[in-house]
Protein backbone atom coordinates (compact mmCIF):
# COMPACT_ATOMS: atom_id res chain seq x y z
CA UNK A 1 0.00 0.00 0.00
CA UNK A 2 0.90 3.62 -0.67
CA UNK A 3 4.49 4.67 -1.25
CA UNK A 4 7.91 3.01 -1.00
CA UNK A 5 9.19 5.67 1.41
CA UNK A 6 6.45 5.00 3.97
CA UNK A 7 7.85 4.52 7.47
CA UNK A 8 8.02 0.90 8.52
CA UNK A 9 6.45 -0.25 11.77
CA UNK A 10 9.27 -1.27 14.10
CA UNK A 11 7.99 -2.37 17.50
CA UNK A 12 10.55 -1.55 20.20
CA UNK A 13 9.02 -3.37 23.14
CA UNK A 14 9.46 -7.16 23.27
CA UNK A 15 5.75 -7.60 24.03
CA UNK A 16 4.80 -5.58 20.94
CA UNK A 17 7.25 -7.62 18.87
CA UNK A 18 5.66 -10.81 20.18
CA UNK A 19 2.19 -9.51 19.27
CA UNK A 20 3.31 -8.24 15.84
CA UNK A 21 4.66 -11.66 14.85
CA UNK A 22 1.36 -13.31 15.71
CA UNK A 23 -1.31 -10.71 14.93
CA UNK A 24 0.01 -7.57 13.20
CA UNK A 25 -2.92 -5.43 14.28
CA UNK A 26 -0.77 -2.60 15.71
CA UNK A 27 1.16 -2.64 12.40
CA UNK A 28 -2.14 -2.39 10.52
CA UNK A 29 -3.22 0.62 12.58
CA UNK A 30 0.23 2.23 12.19
CA UNK A 31 0.03 1.83 8.41
CA UNK A 32 -3.55 3.10 8.29
CA UNK A 33 -3.64 6.15 10.56
CA UNK A 34 -0.12 6.29 12.01
CA UNK A 35 3.38 7.20 10.85
CA UNK A 36 3.22 4.48 8.19
CA UNK A 37 0.74 6.31 5.95
CA UNK A 38 2.28 9.09 3.85
CA UNK A 39 -0.19 11.89 3.10
CA UNK A 40 0.19 14.87 0.74
CA UNK A 41 1.64 17.77 2.70
CA UNK A 42 -0.76 20.36 1.33
CA UNK A 43 -4.17 19.17 2.54
CA UNK A 44 -6.53 21.93 3.64
CA UNK A 45 -9.19 21.71 6.34
CA UNK A 46 -11.70 20.18 3.93
CA UNK A 47 -9.70 16.99 4.40
CA UNK A 48 -10.67 16.86 8.10
CA UNK A 49 -14.22 15.80 7.41
CA UNK A 50 -13.56 12.13 6.71
CA UNK A 51 -12.17 11.61 10.18
CA UNK A 52 -14.96 13.77 11.64
CA UNK A 53 -17.55 11.55 9.93
CA UNK A 54 -15.96 8.50 11.53
CA UNK A 55 -16.03 10.18 14.95
CA UNK A 56 -19.67 11.19 14.44
CA UNK A 57 -20.55 7.57 13.63
CA UNK A 58 -18.80 6.37 16.81
CA UNK A 59 -20.73 8.94 18.86
CA UNK A 60 -23.96 7.62 17.31
CA UNK A 61 -23.08 3.99 17.97
CA UNK A 62 -22.08 4.59 21.61
CA UNK A 63 -25.09 6.78 22.46
CA UNK A 64 -27.37 4.49 20.45
CA UNK A 65 -26.34 1.34 22.28
CA UNK A 66 -26.98 3.14 25.56
CA UNK A 67 -30.42 4.34 24.41
CA UNK A 68 -31.31 0.78 23.42
CA UNK A 69 -30.67 -0.24 27.05
CA UNK A 70 -33.62 1.91 28.14
CA UNK A 71 -35.94 1.95 25.11
CA UNK A 72 -38.95 -0.33 24.53
CA UNK A 73 -39.84 -1.07 20.92
CA UNK A 74 -43.59 -1.24 21.48
CA UNK A 75 -46.27 1.02 20.03
CA UNK A 76 -47.68 1.53 23.54
CA UNK A 77 -44.38 1.94 25.33
CA UNK A 78 -41.97 3.51 22.85
CA UNK A 79 -43.02 7.15 23.29
CA UNK A 80 -43.16 6.79 27.07
CA UNK A 81 -39.81 5.03 27.18
CA UNK A 82 -38.25 8.02 25.39
CA UNK A 83 -39.79 10.29 28.04
CA UNK A 84 -38.50 7.86 30.70
CA UNK A 85 -35.02 8.29 29.22
CA UNK A 86 -35.43 12.08 29.26
CA UNK A 87 -36.73 12.30 32.84
CA UNK A 88 -35.70 9.28 34.90
CA UNK A 89 -32.54 7.69 33.51
CA UNK A 90 -29.42 9.25 35.02
CA UNK A 91 -28.21 11.75 32.44
CA UNK A 92 -30.57 10.19 29.90
CA UNK A 93 -31.50 13.62 28.52
CA UNK A 94 -27.86 14.11 27.60
CA UNK A 95 -27.54 10.72 25.89
CA UNK A 96 -30.72 11.22 23.85
CA UNK A 97 -29.96 14.81 22.86
CA UNK A 98 -26.44 13.75 21.88
CA UNK A 99 -27.90 11.00 19.69
CA UNK A 100 -30.52 13.32 18.14
CA UNK A 101 -28.09 16.08 17.31
CA UNK A 102 -25.30 13.63 16.59
CA UNK A 103 -27.37 12.45 13.63
CA UNK A 104 -27.60 16.00 12.31
CA UNK A 105 -23.89 16.64 12.82
CA UNK A 106 -23.06 13.32 11.16
CA UNK A 107 -24.95 14.50 8.08
CA UNK A 108 -23.39 17.98 8.22
CA UNK A 109 -19.84 16.62 8.14
CA UNK A 110 -20.71 13.95 5.56
CA UNK A 111 -22.26 16.57 3.25
CA UNK A 112 -19.12 18.72 3.53
CA UNK A 113 -17.05 15.57 2.90
CA UNK A 114 -19.11 14.80 -0.23
CA UNK A 115 -18.92 18.36 -1.59
CA UNK A 116 -15.16 18.32 -0.97
CA UNK A 117 -15.00 15.18 -3.12
CA UNK A 118 -17.18 16.76 -5.81
CA UNK A 119 -15.08 19.92 -6.04
CA UNK A 120 -11.61 18.39 -5.90
CA UNK A 121 -12.40 15.48 -8.23
CA UNK A 122 -11.79 12.87 -5.53
CA UNK A 123 -14.08 10.50 -7.48
CA UNK A 124 -11.74 10.38 -10.47
CA UNK A 125 -9.30 7.59 -11.34
CA UNK A 126 -7.74 5.89 -9.52
CA UNK A 127 -10.22 6.51 -6.65
CA UNK A 128 -13.54 5.49 -8.25
CA UNK A 129 -13.98 2.62 -5.78
CA UNK A 130 -13.56 5.00 -2.84
CA UNK A 131 -16.34 7.15 -4.29
CA UNK A 132 -18.68 4.22 -5.02
CA UNK A 133 -18.30 2.89 -1.48
CA UNK A 134 -18.91 6.42 -0.23
CA UNK A 135 -22.25 6.56 -2.06
CA UNK A 136 -23.14 3.16 -0.55
CA UNK A 137 -22.35 4.58 2.90
CA UNK A 138 -24.53 7.61 2.15
CA UNK A 139 -27.49 5.40 1.14
CA UNK A 140 -27.07 3.27 4.27
CA UNK A 141 -26.96 6.43 6.39
CA UNK A 142 -30.22 7.67 4.91
CA UNK A 143 -31.93 4.34 5.58
CA UNK A 144 -30.56 4.24 9.13
CA UNK A 145 -31.50 7.84 9.91
CA UNK A 146 -35.06 7.33 8.62
CA UNK A 147 -35.59 4.17 10.67
CA UNK A 148 -34.18 5.80 13.79
CA UNK A 149 -36.57 8.72 13.40
CA UNK A 150 -39.52 6.30 13.46
CA UNK A 151 -38.52 4.75 16.80
CA UNK A 152 -39.83 7.42 19.25
CA UNK A 153 -43.29 6.77 17.74
CA UNK A 154 -44.32 10.42 17.72
CA UNK A 155 -46.49 11.99 15.04
CA UNK A 156 -43.60 12.70 12.65
CA UNK A 157 -42.20 9.22 13.29
CA UNK A 158 -45.47 7.56 12.37
CA UNK A 159 -46.36 9.69 9.37
CA UNK A 160 -42.77 9.65 8.15
CA UNK A 161 -42.96 5.85 8.09
CA UNK A 162 -46.30 6.08 6.30
CA UNK A 163 -44.98 8.48 3.62
CA UNK A 164 -41.56 6.91 3.01
CA UNK A 165 -42.97 3.40 2.67
CA UNK A 166 -45.62 4.98 0.41
CA UNK A 167 -42.82 5.67 -2.10
CA UNK A 168 -42.63 1.99 -2.81
CA UNK A 169 -46.34 1.76 -3.60
CA UNK A 170 -45.64 3.94 -6.67
CA UNK A 171 -43.86 1.03 -8.33
CA UNK A 172 -46.22 -0.49 -10.91
CA UNK A 173 -47.78 -3.91 -10.19
CA UNK A 174 -45.66 -4.95 -7.19
CA UNK A 175 -45.77 -1.57 -5.40
CA UNK A 176 -48.61 -2.09 -2.94
CA UNK A 177 -47.69 -5.68 -1.97
CA UNK A 178 -44.09 -4.50 -1.52
CA UNK A 179 -45.20 -1.68 0.76
CA UNK A 180 -47.28 -4.05 2.89
CA UNK A 181 -44.33 -6.42 3.08
CA UNK A 182 -42.05 -3.60 4.25
CA UNK A 183 -44.55 -2.46 6.88
CA UNK A 184 -45.70 -5.91 7.94
CA UNK A 185 -49.31 -4.71 7.62
CA UNK A 186 -51.55 -2.09 6.00
CA UNK A 187 -50.17 0.81 8.00
CA UNK A 188 -47.21 1.34 10.35
CA UNK A 189 -47.78 -0.82 13.41
CA UNK A 190 -46.04 -2.98 16.01
CA UNK A 191 -44.41 -5.15 13.34
CA UNK A 192 -43.02 -2.05 11.61
CA UNK A 193 -41.62 -0.60 14.81
CA UNK A 194 -40.00 -3.89 15.81
CA UNK A 195 -38.27 -4.41 12.48
CA UNK A 196 -37.14 -0.78 12.26
CA UNK A 197 -35.62 -1.07 15.72
CA UNK A 198 -33.81 -4.25 14.72
CA UNK A 199 -32.51 -2.74 11.48
CA UNK A 200 -31.66 0.61 13.07
CA UNK A 201 -29.42 -1.31 15.46
CA UNK A 202 -27.88 -3.39 12.67
CA UNK A 203 -27.21 -0.92 9.87
CA UNK A 204 -24.68 1.32 11.67
CA UNK A 205 -22.42 -1.71 11.94
CA UNK A 206 -22.88 -2.34 8.23
CA UNK A 207 -21.90 1.31 7.71
CA UNK A 208 -18.84 0.74 9.90
CA UNK A 209 -17.83 -2.25 7.75
CA UNK A 210 -18.32 -0.23 4.57
CA UNK A 211 -16.21 2.59 6.04
CA UNK A 212 -13.39 0.09 6.59
CA UNK A 213 -13.63 -0.85 2.89
CA UNK A 214 -13.81 2.87 1.97
CA UNK A 215 -10.59 3.61 3.87
CA UNK A 216 -8.93 0.45 2.53
CA UNK A 217 -9.79 1.49 -1.03
CA UNK A 218 -8.46 4.98 -0.32
CA UNK A 219 -5.13 3.70 0.94
CA UNK A 220 -4.30 1.84 -2.29
CA UNK A 221 -3.69 5.04 -4.33
CA UNK A 222 -3.31 7.20 -1.20
CA UNK A 223 -5.10 10.45 -0.40
CA UNK A 224 -5.71 13.10 -3.04
CA UNK A 225 -4.95 16.76 -2.34
CA UNK A 226 -6.22 20.25 -3.21
CA UNK A 227 -4.07 20.55 -6.34
CA UNK A 228 -5.25 17.18 -7.63
CA UNK A 229 -1.66 16.51 -8.74
CA UNK A 230 -0.51 12.99 -7.85
CA UNK A 231 2.25 12.42 -5.33
CA UNK A 232 5.60 12.11 -7.13
CA UNK A 233 8.29 12.02 -4.48
CA UNK A 234 8.89 11.73 -0.79
CA UNK A 235 9.00 15.50 -0.32
CA UNK A 236 5.36 15.65 -1.45
CA UNK A 237 4.17 13.78 1.64
CA UNK A 238 4.34 13.82 5.41
CA UNK A 239 3.55 10.90 7.73
CA UNK A 240 -0.10 10.88 8.86
CA UNK A 241 1.08 10.84 12.45
CA UNK A 242 1.94 13.32 13.95
CA UNK A 243 1.14 15.81 11.17
CA UNK A 244 -2.46 14.98 10.36
CA UNK A 245 -3.37 13.46 13.71
CA UNK A 246 -2.58 16.89 15.15
CA UNK A 247 -4.43 18.77 12.42
CA UNK A 248 -7.44 16.44 12.61
CA UNK A 249 -7.35 16.70 16.39
CA UNK A 250 -7.67 20.47 16.16
CA UNK A 251 -10.56 20.15 13.72
CA UNK A 252 -12.17 17.57 16.00
CA UNK A 253 -11.97 20.04 18.88
CA UNK A 254 -13.86 22.67 16.88
CA UNK A 255 -16.40 20.08 15.73
CA UNK A 256 -17.07 18.89 19.28
CA UNK A 257 -17.37 22.50 20.44
CA UNK A 258 -20.11 23.17 17.87
CA UNK A 259 -21.73 19.82 18.67
CA UNK A 260 -21.97 20.34 22.44
CA UNK A 261 -23.06 23.95 21.94
CA UNK A 262 -26.13 22.76 20.05
CA UNK A 263 -26.65 19.70 22.27
CA UNK A 264 -26.64 21.73 25.49
CA UNK A 265 -28.11 25.06 24.44
CA UNK A 266 -30.47 24.33 21.59
CA UNK A 267 -31.08 20.60 21.48
CA UNK A 268 -34.47 20.77 19.72
CA UNK A 269 -33.48 23.42 17.18
CA UNK A 270 -33.17 20.87 14.37
CA UNK A 271 -36.08 18.68 15.44
CA UNK A 272 -39.79 18.98 14.73
CA UNK A 273 -42.12 19.81 17.64
CA UNK A 274 -44.80 17.46 16.29
CA UNK A 275 -42.64 14.52 17.24
CA UNK A 276 -43.42 15.32 20.89
CA UNK A 277 -47.03 14.35 20.15
CA UNK A 278 -47.59 10.58 20.47
CA UNK A 279 -48.36 8.84 17.18
CA UNK A 280 -52.00 9.00 16.16
CA UNK A 281 -52.96 6.86 13.16
CA UNK A 282 -56.21 8.81 12.73
CA UNK A 283 -54.81 12.33 12.38
CA UNK A 284 -52.12 13.57 10.02
CA UNK A 285 -49.94 16.59 10.90
CA UNK A 286 -50.47 19.74 8.79
CA UNK A 287 -47.33 19.17 6.77
CA UNK A 288 -45.16 16.18 7.02
CA UNK A 289 -41.53 17.19 6.76
CA UNK A 290 -38.50 14.93 7.01
CA UNK A 291 -35.44 15.87 9.02
CA UNK A 292 -33.46 18.74 7.46
CA UNK A 293 -30.85 16.47 5.90
CA UNK A 294 -33.39 14.84 3.59
CA UNK A 295 -35.05 18.08 2.46
CA UNK A 296 -33.31 18.46 -0.95
CA UNK A 297 -34.38 14.95 -1.92
CA UNK A 298 -37.87 15.52 -0.55
CA UNK A 299 -38.11 18.65 -2.74
CA UNK A 300 -37.12 16.65 -5.83
CA UNK A 301 -39.88 14.18 -4.95
CA UNK A 302 -42.44 16.97 -4.67
CA UNK A 303 -41.25 18.75 -7.85
CA UNK A 304 -42.99 16.25 -10.11
CA UNK A 305 -46.64 17.26 -10.22
CA UNK A 306 -47.67 16.36 -13.75
CA UNK A 307 -48.33 12.92 -15.18
CA UNK A 308 -45.97 12.03 -17.99
CA UNK A 309 -47.90 10.70 -20.98
CA UNK A 310 -48.94 11.19 -24.58
CA UNK A 311 -50.51 14.66 -24.96
CA UNK A 312 -54.25 14.93 -25.74
CA UNK A 313 -54.83 11.17 -25.47
CA UNK A 314 -55.14 10.82 -21.73
CA UNK A 315 -52.71 7.89 -21.86
CA UNK A 316 -50.41 8.09 -18.86
CA UNK A 317 -47.04 6.43 -19.26
CA UNK A 318 -45.47 7.45 -15.96
CA UNK A 319 -47.75 8.94 -13.30
CA UNK A 320 -46.44 11.96 -11.36
CA UNK A 321 -46.13 9.94 -8.15
CA UNK A 322 -43.83 7.35 -9.75
CA UNK A 323 -41.89 10.07 -11.55
CA UNK A 324 -41.17 11.87 -8.29
CA UNK A 325 -40.02 8.67 -6.62
CA UNK A 326 -37.81 7.72 -9.57
CA UNK A 327 -36.31 11.21 -9.64
CA UNK A 328 -35.62 11.19 -5.91
CA UNK A 329 -33.84 7.83 -5.99
CA UNK A 330 -32.24 8.81 -9.29
CA UNK A 331 -30.76 11.96 -7.77
CA UNK A 332 -28.73 9.79 -5.39
CA UNK A 333 -28.04 6.87 -7.73
CA UNK A 334 -26.71 9.42 -10.24
CA UNK A 335 -23.69 9.86 -8.00
CA UNK A 336 -22.65 6.28 -8.78
CA UNK A 337 -22.03 7.30 -12.41
CA UNK A 338 -20.18 10.53 -11.67
CA UNK A 339 -16.64 9.16 -12.27
CA UNK A 340 -17.65 8.38 -15.86
CA UNK A 341 -19.76 11.49 -16.48
CA UNK A 342 -16.90 13.86 -15.72
CA UNK A 343 -14.16 13.02 -18.21
CA UNK A 344 -11.80 15.92 -17.54
CA UNK A 345 -8.22 14.77 -16.91
CA UNK A 346 -7.80 17.53 -14.31
CA UNK A 347 -9.04 16.55 -10.84
CA UNK A 348 -9.14 19.74 -8.84
CA UNK A 349 -11.82 22.39 -9.44
CA UNK A 350 -9.09 24.85 -8.61
CA UNK A 351 -7.67 24.55 -12.14
CA UNK A 352 -11.00 24.20 -13.97
CA UNK A 353 -12.45 27.73 -14.26
CA UNK A 354 -15.65 26.77 -16.07
CA UNK A 355 -16.37 23.77 -13.85
CA UNK A 356 -15.70 25.91 -10.80
CA UNK A 357 -18.32 28.48 -11.84
CA UNK A 358 -20.95 25.84 -12.52
CA UNK A 359 -20.14 24.10 -9.24
CA UNK A 360 -20.15 27.17 -7.00
CA UNK A 361 -22.91 29.17 -8.72
CA UNK A 362 -24.99 26.33 -10.12
CA UNK A 363 -24.89 23.08 -8.19
CA UNK A 364 -24.52 24.44 -4.66
CA UNK A 365 -27.30 27.06 -4.98
CA UNK A 366 -29.59 24.48 -6.61
CA UNK A 367 -29.11 22.03 -3.73
CA UNK A 368 -29.65 24.81 -1.16
CA UNK A 369 -32.79 25.97 -3.00
CA UNK A 370 -34.07 22.39 -3.05
CA UNK A 371 -33.44 22.15 0.67
CA UNK A 372 -35.39 25.34 1.29
CA UNK A 373 -38.31 24.27 -0.92
CA UNK A 374 -38.33 20.88 0.80
CA UNK A 375 -39.44 22.39 4.09
CA UNK A 376 -42.04 24.68 2.50
CA UNK A 377 -45.61 23.59 1.76
CA UNK A 378 -46.35 22.38 -1.78
CA UNK A 379 -47.59 25.71 -3.17
CA UNK A 380 -46.29 28.43 -5.50
CA UNK A 381 -43.64 29.75 -5.81
CA UNK A 382 -41.92 26.86 -4.04
CA UNK A 383 -43.08 24.22 -6.51
CA UNK A 384 -41.73 26.25 -9.40
CA UNK A 385 -38.40 26.93 -7.68
CA UNK A 386 -37.95 23.27 -6.80
CA UNK A 387 -38.74 22.28 -10.40
CA UNK A 388 -36.09 24.65 -11.76
CA UNK A 389 -33.54 23.61 -9.13
CA UNK A 390 -34.22 19.90 -9.67
CA UNK A 391 -33.87 20.36 -13.42
CA UNK A 392 -30.54 22.10 -12.90
CA UNK A 393 -29.36 19.39 -10.52
CA UNK A 394 -29.89 16.66 -13.10
CA UNK A 395 -28.60 18.81 -15.95
CA UNK A 396 -25.44 19.58 -14.01
CA UNK A 397 -24.42 15.93 -13.85
CA UNK A 398 -25.92 14.62 -17.09
CA UNK A 399 -25.36 17.53 -19.51
CA UNK A 400 -23.14 20.29 -18.15
CA UNK A 401 -20.34 18.14 -16.70
CA UNK A 402 -19.81 15.98 -19.83
CA UNK A 403 -19.77 19.10 -22.06
CA UNK A 404 -17.62 21.22 -19.74
CA UNK A 405 -15.11 18.36 -19.47
CA UNK A 406 -14.64 18.50 -23.25
CA UNK A 407 -14.64 22.22 -24.03
CA UNK A 408 -12.98 23.65 -20.94
CA UNK A 409 -9.51 25.17 -21.16
CA UNK A 410 -7.91 24.23 -17.85
CA UNK A 411 -5.31 26.32 -16.02
CA UNK A 412 -1.70 25.11 -15.93
CA UNK A 413 -1.12 22.58 -13.17
CA UNK A 414 1.85 22.79 -10.80
CA UNK A 415 4.57 20.27 -11.63
CA UNK A 416 4.39 18.76 -8.16
CA UNK A 417 2.84 19.19 -4.75
CA UNK A 418 6.20 20.30 -3.38
CA UNK A 419 6.44 23.02 -6.02
CA UNK A 420 2.91 24.16 -5.30
CA UNK A 421 3.78 24.53 -1.62
CA UNK A 422 7.35 25.90 -1.71
CA UNK A 423 7.59 27.46 -5.16
CA UNK A 424 10.80 25.49 -5.71
CA UNK A 425 10.84 22.68 -8.27
CA UNK A 426 10.96 19.12 -7.04
CA UNK A 427 14.52 17.84 -6.69
CA UNK A 428 14.48 14.67 -8.70
CA UNK A 429 16.86 11.74 -8.46
CA UNK A 430 19.38 13.19 -6.02
CA UNK A 431 16.68 14.30 -3.61
Amino acid at each position, binding site marked *: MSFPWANEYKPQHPVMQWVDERLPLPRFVYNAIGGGYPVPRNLNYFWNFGVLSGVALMIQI*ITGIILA*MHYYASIDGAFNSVEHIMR*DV*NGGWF*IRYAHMNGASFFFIVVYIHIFRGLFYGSYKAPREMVWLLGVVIFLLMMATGFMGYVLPWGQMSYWGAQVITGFFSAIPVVGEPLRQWLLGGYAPDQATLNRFFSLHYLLPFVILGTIILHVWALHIPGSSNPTGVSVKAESDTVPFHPYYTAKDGFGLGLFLLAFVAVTFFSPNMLGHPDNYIPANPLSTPAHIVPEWYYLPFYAILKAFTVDFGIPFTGIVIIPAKLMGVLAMFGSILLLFFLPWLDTSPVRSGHYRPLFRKFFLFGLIPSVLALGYCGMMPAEQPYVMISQIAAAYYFAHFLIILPIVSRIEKTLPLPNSITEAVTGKPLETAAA
Partner: protein
Amino acid sequence: MATVEQAESMTETVAEDGVRRRDFIHIAAVSWAGVGAAAVALPLLNQMGASADVRALASIEVDVAAIEPGQAIKTSWRKQPVFIRNLTPAEVADANKVAVGTLRDPQTLADRTKPGKENWLITMGVCTHLGCVPLGAAAGEVKGEFGGYFCPCHGSHYDTAGRIRKGPAPLNLQVPEFAFISDTVVKIG
Protein backbone atom coordinates in the same frame (compact mmCIF):
# COMPACT_ATOMS: atom_id res chain seq x y z
CA MET B 1 4.12 28.17 8.31
CA ALA B 2 6.87 25.74 9.30
CA THR B 3 7.64 23.34 6.51
CA VAL B 4 9.15 19.89 6.82
CA GLU B 5 12.59 21.11 5.75
CA GLN B 6 12.52 23.86 8.37
CA ALA B 7 11.46 21.43 11.03
CA GLU B 8 14.37 19.18 10.19
CA SER B 9 16.84 22.04 10.36
CA MET B 10 15.51 23.37 13.63
CA THR B 11 17.75 22.45 16.50
CA GLU B 12 15.79 21.63 19.58
CA THR B 13 16.80 23.31 22.80
CA VAL B 14 17.52 20.55 25.26
CA ALA B 15 18.05 21.42 28.90
CA GLU B 16 20.97 19.94 30.80
CA ASP B 17 18.85 17.12 32.20
CA GLY B 18 17.75 16.08 28.71
CA VAL B 19 14.15 17.28 29.12
CA ARG B 20 12.75 19.13 26.12
CA ARG B 21 9.98 21.72 26.22
CA ARG B 22 8.08 19.42 23.89
CA ASP B 23 8.07 16.65 26.51
CA PHE B 24 6.06 18.90 28.79
CA ILE B 25 3.62 19.71 25.99
CA HIS B 26 3.18 15.99 25.25
CA ILE B 27 2.47 15.14 28.88
CA ALA B 28 0.14 18.12 29.31
CA ALA B 29 -1.81 17.30 26.15
CA VAL B 30 -2.20 13.60 26.94
CA SER B 31 -3.20 14.37 30.54
CA TRP B 32 -5.81 16.85 29.42
CA ALA B 33 -7.13 14.31 26.88
CA GLY B 34 -7.40 11.85 29.77
CA VAL B 35 -9.43 14.37 31.78
CA GLY B 36 -11.71 14.83 28.78
CA ALA B 37 -12.10 11.07 28.28
CA ALA B 38 -13.01 10.65 31.96
CA ALA B 39 -15.54 13.50 31.77
CA VAL B 40 -17.21 11.80 28.80
CA ALA B 41 -17.04 8.32 30.34
CA LEU B 42 -18.81 9.37 33.57
CA PRO B 43 -22.30 10.06 32.16
CA LEU B 44 -21.95 7.08 29.81
CA LEU B 45 -21.45 4.80 32.84
CA ASN B 46 -23.77 6.63 35.23
CA GLN B 47 -26.79 6.00 32.98
CA MET B 48 -26.71 2.32 33.94
CA GLY B 49 -27.44 3.02 37.62
CA ALA B 50 -30.93 2.90 39.15
CA SER B 51 -33.10 5.49 37.40
CA ALA B 52 -35.29 8.00 39.24
CA ASP B 53 -38.48 5.97 38.78
CA VAL B 54 -36.80 2.94 40.37
CA ARG B 55 -35.44 5.01 43.25
CA ALA B 56 -38.91 6.48 43.78
CA LEU B 57 -40.17 3.05 44.88
CA ALA B 58 -37.85 3.13 47.88
CA SER B 59 -40.47 2.85 50.63
CA ILE B 60 -43.77 1.04 51.25
CA GLU B 61 -46.34 1.06 54.05
CA VAL B 62 -47.87 -2.19 55.29
CA ASP B 63 -50.86 -2.67 57.59
CA VAL B 64 -49.96 -5.62 59.83
CA ALA B 65 -53.15 -5.67 61.97
CA ALA B 66 -54.43 -8.88 60.36
CA ILE B 67 -51.32 -10.97 61.08
CA GLU B 68 -52.00 -13.28 64.04
CA PRO B 69 -49.12 -14.54 66.26
CA GLY B 70 -47.43 -17.46 64.48
CA GLN B 71 -48.37 -16.12 61.07
CA ALA B 72 -46.25 -14.33 58.54
CA ILE B 73 -46.85 -12.50 55.27
CA LYS B 74 -44.67 -11.95 52.26
CA THR B 75 -44.68 -8.53 50.73
CA SER B 76 -42.52 -6.92 48.11
CA TRP B 77 -40.19 -3.98 48.58
CA ARG B 78 -37.76 -2.79 45.92
CA LYS B 79 -38.88 -5.75 43.82
CA GLN B 80 -37.64 -8.11 46.53
CA PRO B 81 -39.65 -10.25 48.98
CA VAL B 82 -39.95 -9.05 52.58
CA PHE B 83 -41.14 -11.39 55.38
CA ILE B 84 -43.23 -9.82 58.14
CA ARG B 85 -43.68 -12.31 60.95
CA ASN B 86 -45.66 -12.02 64.15
CA LEU B 87 -43.68 -14.25 66.56
CA THR B 88 -45.50 -16.23 69.25
CA PRO B 89 -44.21 -15.73 72.84
CA ALA B 90 -42.64 -19.22 72.57
CA GLU B 91 -40.73 -18.25 69.45
CA VAL B 92 -39.51 -15.05 71.12
CA ALA B 93 -38.34 -17.09 74.10
CA ASP B 94 -36.59 -19.58 71.77
CA ALA B 95 -34.73 -16.79 70.09
CA ASN B 96 -33.66 -15.20 73.37
CA LYS B 97 -32.41 -18.54 74.83
CA VAL B 98 -29.53 -18.75 72.37
CA ALA B 99 -26.06 -17.71 73.56
CA VAL B 100 -25.18 -14.95 71.15
CA GLY B 101 -21.47 -15.80 71.21
CA THR B 102 -22.08 -19.14 69.56
CA LEU B 103 -23.68 -17.61 66.46
CA ARG B 104 -22.04 -17.18 63.07
CA ASP B 105 -23.43 -13.65 62.83
CA PRO B 106 -23.91 -12.61 66.47
CA GLN B 107 -27.08 -10.55 66.99
CA THR B 108 -29.84 -10.64 69.59
CA LEU B 109 -33.53 -10.58 68.73
CA ALA B 110 -33.64 -7.10 70.30
CA ASP B 111 -30.98 -5.94 67.81
CA ARG B 112 -33.23 -7.07 64.99
CA THR B 113 -36.60 -5.70 66.18
CA LYS B 114 -38.04 -2.47 67.58
CA PRO B 115 -38.31 -1.95 71.36
CA GLY B 116 -41.76 -2.96 72.66
CA LYS B 117 -42.44 -4.68 69.33
CA GLU B 118 -40.12 -7.67 69.79
CA ASN B 119 -42.72 -10.00 68.30
CA TRP B 120 -42.53 -8.27 64.90
CA LEU B 121 -39.68 -9.81 62.95
CA ILE B 122 -39.31 -8.00 59.65
CA THR B 123 -36.59 -9.34 57.36
CA MET B 124 -35.76 -9.50 53.69
CA GLY B 125 -36.87 -12.79 52.17
CA VAL B 126 -33.53 -13.15 50.50
CA CYS B 127 -31.12 -15.88 51.63
CA THR B 128 -27.74 -14.31 52.32
CA HIS B 129 -26.01 -17.24 50.63
CA LEU B 130 -26.97 -16.80 46.99
CA GLY B 131 -30.19 -14.83 47.07
CA CYS B 132 -32.91 -17.50 46.89
CA VAL B 133 -36.19 -16.99 48.73
CA PRO B 134 -36.25 -19.15 51.93
CA LEU B 135 -39.35 -21.12 52.95
CA GLY B 136 -41.23 -20.66 56.21
CA ALA B 137 -43.23 -17.49 55.75
CA ALA B 138 -46.34 -19.03 54.23
CA ALA B 139 -48.52 -21.51 56.12
CA GLY B 140 -47.42 -25.12 55.70
CA GLU B 141 -43.90 -24.35 54.53
CA VAL B 142 -40.91 -26.04 56.09
CA LYS B 143 -39.39 -23.81 58.79
CA GLY B 144 -36.08 -25.66 59.18
CA GLU B 145 -34.45 -27.19 62.22
CA PHE B 146 -34.65 -23.96 64.22
CA GLY B 147 -38.28 -23.07 63.54
CA GLY B 148 -37.55 -19.93 61.54
CA TYR B 149 -36.86 -20.14 57.86
CA PHE B 150 -35.30 -22.79 55.67
CA CYS B 151 -33.69 -22.26 52.32
CA PRO B 152 -33.85 -25.59 50.46
CA CYS B 153 -31.56 -24.63 47.62
CA HIS B 154 -28.36 -25.11 49.59
CA GLY B 155 -29.73 -26.03 53.01
CA SER B 156 -29.49 -22.86 55.08
CA HIS B 157 -31.46 -22.92 58.36
CA TYR B 158 -32.53 -19.68 60.04
CA ASP B 159 -33.97 -19.45 63.56
CA THR B 160 -37.01 -17.57 64.84
CA ALA B 161 -35.01 -14.34 64.85
CA GLY B 162 -34.02 -14.92 61.22
CA ARG B 163 -30.42 -15.64 62.22
CA ILE B 164 -28.31 -18.11 60.31
CA ARG B 165 -27.75 -21.26 62.39
CA LYS B 166 -26.78 -23.99 59.95
CA GLY B 167 -25.80 -24.28 56.32
CA PRO B 168 -23.70 -22.21 53.92
CA ALA B 169 -25.23 -18.72 54.33
CA PRO B 170 -22.75 -16.30 55.93
CA LEU B 171 -25.13 -13.74 57.48
CA ASN B 172 -28.51 -13.39 59.19
CA LEU B 173 -31.48 -12.46 57.01
CA GLN B 174 -31.12 -8.74 56.41
CA VAL B 175 -33.41 -6.47 58.40
CA PRO B 176 -34.50 -3.56 56.20
CA GLU B 177 -34.82 -0.08 57.58
CA PHE B 178 -38.35 0.08 59.02
CA ALA B 179 -40.43 1.97 61.53
CA PHE B 180 -43.90 1.65 63.06
CA ILE B 181 -45.75 4.79 62.03
CA SER B 182 -48.77 3.66 64.09
CA ASP B 183 -49.57 0.59 66.18
CA THR B 184 -50.45 -1.45 63.13
CA VAL B 185 -48.77 0.23 60.18
CA VAL B 186 -45.12 -0.38 59.31
CA LYS B 187 -43.17 1.79 56.91
CA ILE B 188 -40.37 -0.14 55.24
CA GLY B 189 -37.55 1.82 53.65
